[in-house]
């Protein structure tokens, strides 16, 4: 490790040691050891000490170096940084004994604490002092020091309540929940990110033999301490939490848990400052890279601790989680820009870039002249960017003058999955309409970057686990926005209340509207003609019992269920948005009445088959067409002139038009609706069904189309009921069962469809 990097690390850890200090206690069983330099000689200062040689005397340093994710150039972490109290080994002559070995009180070495991880990864606090952002928060980027938890995810790992912090948070008085509930419950970093071969955590080899659920054979503690595999595990929430044991309020729990990452609801509204862009191609007057935040509102003169922070709205994308399952998960996209020397592809050191921008503690006058558009004398946040080719070339020239070979701006798009800073369950997202509505988090446009330095769009790095689906389009102001399918969702998921098939809805609505207009016109005409004719009372004849008790019961149950289903269905679909029901309520009622309707339908089917009443529904082929025509003519013409209703064929209760309608309704539409509805419900309860039928995006539109047809039928049916002797005549007969019979007619009339 180079001197410079070491010094930088020492400096950084010193600076960050303030808010992140925690007492790693004295380790009572760590053997005494003397600090050694690279050659193996005993030394007495921290600068001369070489961790590989010192720690490597017992812990296999070569093995660790070969089995770690924390290696250069990504990270320059050493044993000291992670395992020692405060991130530095305090070696002073008075701490060493006569043999040059560290005294027991100075051996504060052990498993990494959250404060150790926080030196590089983000703002970690033990909560004893008020959480605030340190001055180094916007410091120059160093290897590994990415603040990935805070700047990347918007998470602050602290047990303290957010309302007790020093930050300016939106709605701070009501934020009584801790920044991170795991930190508050003493679940620290290594609880999830443990060493891969830790015998305490790993269950050994599993699953090789079908009769073996666990294999107890594993390394001993000593073997682990000598060769700890530093490829750290990445646990999913489900390693400790069983989501099915909670969330009783959630309809279709199984489906939600299958398709959604826990973080979608539990990491919504993170209150840490999350970056949108870390632009190291531009340097502020203070010598830091220009950082733009997604959820921070900085007014003139604000420091990071006084700027107003709002809840972070993440981008929901499909992601392969650490248990290998593909789910919708929230990420924060951060564009990272830097100058690169095109010749050999190496990064231009930030100090060089800073020298190109700054002079004597402030921006160089030539730079100010170039960038200060409003002539205010300083470069504001909005001006500090390479958003024109002239500005880019200007800075490139200055870099070339400092000896950089062929500088070019390169941007990288990092997707940081939100997994930390999870707060208590009362802060979790409970609003169904955040996703299940026309305006849904799953389909919102997402601003990737407000501007593109050097005009080059950021590229995802190799091996990214996140699939960005949508269209990357330019935004106003020269930036980049991710436009997504307004009616869809990531992964092609069908989201009730949000996903819709445009043409099904359009055609269905047109059909409904057409029928509605038709019956209004028909009815108006009837009324107008009727008035012209004057009131002619039909002779009131005898009453005949045509509708049995079961038939009426069956009819009205069907009617009530149907109305309830249509109303709640519209509520679920979201289009009507009556607003007197919540989505879970609408779903619950819809399912209840669906069951009632299905039971009712089957009972009625059985009844009709058993009593042969089904004969009424079967059209008689003889004279069918003539009869049908007769009815149609009556509806189109005769009814206006007060003619009496054409008679049904002998023994038939229903007229041909009714028989045709019911044929289609009972044999096609009802089964289709019931089957598609059952499938939608089944997908919610047994998510594996979704895989079997290839998702809901074909099934749901069919159900939707059927619903429109039912609605249309309902309008027509109710209207035609009014075509009896008096407008309420047929309605009464469906309630009482008795029908008026014309005195000079032999056969009874049937009810209207």
């Amino acid at each position, binding site marked *: 490790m180079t001197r410079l990097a070491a010094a930088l690390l020492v400096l950084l850890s010193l600076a960050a040691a303030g808010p992140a200090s925690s007492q790693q206690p004295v380790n009572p069983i760590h053997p005494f050891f003397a600090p050694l330099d690279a050659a193996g000689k005993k030394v007495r200062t921290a600068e001369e000490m070489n961790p590989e040689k010192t720690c490597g005397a017992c812990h296999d340093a070569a093995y660790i170096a070969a089995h770690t994710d924390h290696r250069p150039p990504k990270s320059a972490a050493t044993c000291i940084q992670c395992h020692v109290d405060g991130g530095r080994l305090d070696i002073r002559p008075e701490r060493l004994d006569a043999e040059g070995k560290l005294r027991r009180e100075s051996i504060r070495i052990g498993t990494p604490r959250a404060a150790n991880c926080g030196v590089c990864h983000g703002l970690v606090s033990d909560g004893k002092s008020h959480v605030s952002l340190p001055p180094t928060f916007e410091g120059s980027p160093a290897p590994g020091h990415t603040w990935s938890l805070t700047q990347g995810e918007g998470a602050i790992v602290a*047990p303290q309540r957010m309302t007790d912090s020093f930050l300016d948070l939106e709605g701070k008085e009501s934020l009584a929940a801790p920044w991170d509930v795991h930190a508050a*419950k*003493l679940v620290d970093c290594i609880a999830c990110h443990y060493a891969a071969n830790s015998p305490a955590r790993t269950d050994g080899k599993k699953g090789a033999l079908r009769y073996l659920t666990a294999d107890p054979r594993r390394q001993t503690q000593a073997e682990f301490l000598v060769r700890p595999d530093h490829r750290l595990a990445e646990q999913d929430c489900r390693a400790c939490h069983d989501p099915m044991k909670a969330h009783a309020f959630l309809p279709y729990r199984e489906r939600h848990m299958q398709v959604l990452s826990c973080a979608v609801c539990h990491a919504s509204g993170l209150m840490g400052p999350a970056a949108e862009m870390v632009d190291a191609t531009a340097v502020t007057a203070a010598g830091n890279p220009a950082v733009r935040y997604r959820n921070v509102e900085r007014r003139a003169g604000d420091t990071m601790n006084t700027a107003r922070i709002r809840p972070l709205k993440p981008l929901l994308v499909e992601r392969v989680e650490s248990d290998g399952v593909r789910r919708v998960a929230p990420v924060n996209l951060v564009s990272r820009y830097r100058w690169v020397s095109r010749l050999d592809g190496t990064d231009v050191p930030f100090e060089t870039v800073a020298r190109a921008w700054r002079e004597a503690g402030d921006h160089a006058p030539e730079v100010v002249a170039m960038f200060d558009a409003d002539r205010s004398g300083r470069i504001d946040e909005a001006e500090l960017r390479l958003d024109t080719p002239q500005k880019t070339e200007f800075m490139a020239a200055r870099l070339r003058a400092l000896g950089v070979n062929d500088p070019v701006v390169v941007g990288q798009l990092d997707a940081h999955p939100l997994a930390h800073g999870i707060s208590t369950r009362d802060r979790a997202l409970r609003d169904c309409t955040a996703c299940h509505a026309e305006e849904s988090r799953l389909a919102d446009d997402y601003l990737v970057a407000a501007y593109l330095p050097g005009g080059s769009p950021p590229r995802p790095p190799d091996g990214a686990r996140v699939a960005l689906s949508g269209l990357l389009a330019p935004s106003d102001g020269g930036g980049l926005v991710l436009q997504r399918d307004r009616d869809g969702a990531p992964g092609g998921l069908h989201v009730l209340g949000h996903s819709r098939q445009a043409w099904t809805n359009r055609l269905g609505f047109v059909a409904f509207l057409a029928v509605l207009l038709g019956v209004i016109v028909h009815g108006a005409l009837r009324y107008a003609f009727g008035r012209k004719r004057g009131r002619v009372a039909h002779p009131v004849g005898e009453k005949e019992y045509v509708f049995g008790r079961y038939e009426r019961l069956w009819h*009205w149950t069907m009617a*009530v269920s149907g109305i309830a289903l249509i109303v709640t269905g519209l509520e679920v679909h979201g289009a009507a948005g009556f607003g*007197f029901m919540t989505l879970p309520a609408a779903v*619950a*009622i819809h399912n209840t009445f669906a069951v009632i309707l299905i039971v009712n339908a089957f009972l009625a089917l059985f009844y009709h088959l058993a009593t042969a009443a089904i004969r009424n529904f079967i059209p008689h082929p003889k004279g069918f067409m003539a009869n049908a025509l007769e009815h149609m003519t009556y509806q189109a013409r005769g009814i206006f002139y007060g003619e009496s209703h054409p008679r049904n064929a002998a023994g038939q209760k229903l007229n041909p038009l009714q028989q045709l309608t019911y044929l289609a309704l009972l044999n096609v539409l009802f089964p289709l609706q019931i089957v598609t509805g059952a499938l939608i419900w089944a997908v919610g309860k047994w998510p594996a069904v979704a895989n079997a039928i290839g998702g809901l995006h074909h099934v749901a539109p069919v159900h939707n189309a059927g619903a429109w047809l039912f609605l249309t039928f309902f309008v027509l049916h109710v209207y035609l009921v009014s075509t009896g002797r008096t407008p309420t005549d047929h309605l009464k007969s469906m*309630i009482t069962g008795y029908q008026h019979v014309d005195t000079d007619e032999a056969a009874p009339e049937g009810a209207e469809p």
Partner: protein
Amino acid sequence: MTKKYLLLGSMFIAVVAAVVGVAVALQTPPAPPQAAPGFSKRARPHFDHAPVTPAKFDGPQAVTRSCLGCHPDAAHVMKTSHWQWLGEEVVVPGHEGKTRIGKKNLLNNFCLVNRGNEKTCTKCHIGYGWADDSFDFKNPENVDCLVCHEKTGTYVKGMYGIPTKESDLVAAAKSVGTPQRENCLGCHAFGGGGQGVKHGDIDSSLAHPFDEEDVHMGRHGFLCVDCHKAPDHQIKGRAFSVGVEDSNGVACSDCHDGHKHTDARVDTHVKSVACQTCHIPEFAGQLPTKAWWDWSKAGDAARKEDPHGYLKIKGEFTYQQDAVPEYRWFNGTVGRYLLGDKIDPNKVTVLNPPLGGIDDPKAKIWPFKIHRGKQPYDAGFNYLFPPVTGGKGGYWTTFDWDSAFRLGSEASKIPYSGKYGFAPTEMYWPLSHMVSTKENALACTDCHGEKSRMDWKALGYAADPIKTGGRP
């Protein structure tokens, strides 16, 4: 026909109503939190005593006579420890037989002892004129009704409990009613000879506390008597400085019975951790309380006096404020040092050690204020000694310990060997007041983890029970 219409029509309406009802019910927000189950709002009688108060009293006993005229049963207060400064007969742990103990005959490590010092100590007795053993405890007219019941705030008790000349008895008598917080605090906040010296969780800030300082008396406006109910003047509650058990005590569960916390994990603590431990995160927030009282330093005329540091008559002390309690197992009983018990002057004598330990199923972890100090003892007989300090001719007059011991030997009827010294002692004060709001209750990281306020090994655990498990 019409009946059928009606029947079917109403059935239909019923179904529709059911649907709408279900929809609405599924949306109704949860009911707001109720008051604690055992709590009942008490009506405080408001009777204006002005019309029935005589125009003049010829002495404090005359006031009491006048009260007794309408409230003869009020004399029952004489059966209680407020009057007698003695409790019922109890077996004091570590001693044989039953004795009556109380402020009358016990030692503490504050002002030490009442006997012999009645002049100053009985200022806080609810009677008039207790100067020595000749005081008539059976005479109801000696009871001071006004100290608890008057509301002018101008009534002051002087030496021997007799009201000062400036106290307007008539005005005080006219103002009587339900005891306010100031009535109780008038004595209980000044125990030990000054503001907030003794208890740590009782001082004058409880008269008008902020919600966070005391949620019952602040946010909810409780009077002391709302918890320390006094049926027939038998006031509930007895301090563990003068009693060894709390059969007539006050408990959180008197009102908060069977309470379930929002976080179910907290409920698993309830069998080992007292409510007070988490809900009293600190004591002596607004006003400091005495933590250390070294009598051996008293008498130095050359030293500069400072009521929070050194007084010639009392010695050297230190105060603490915003103090973190110390935590011990406690099963509701304490041992008690009685006059004449032998001590080892080289070790700390605990005057009222809380009993119970990790293996005692009745014991829970309680928060304590521990008052430490050095107090006079008889170096020949090796027992703590009750000297006369504020009484006639006592140490505060002569600054002569030997003479103070002799006088004390007569007053308390305990032999004095002629040699005196100062021995280290401790007194434990379990905290139950200054209950903060639930938002300020201790959180997981306050006791578990690196920066813990618990000394697990001292409590008998192998290590932090979050890692090793609690007691079964």
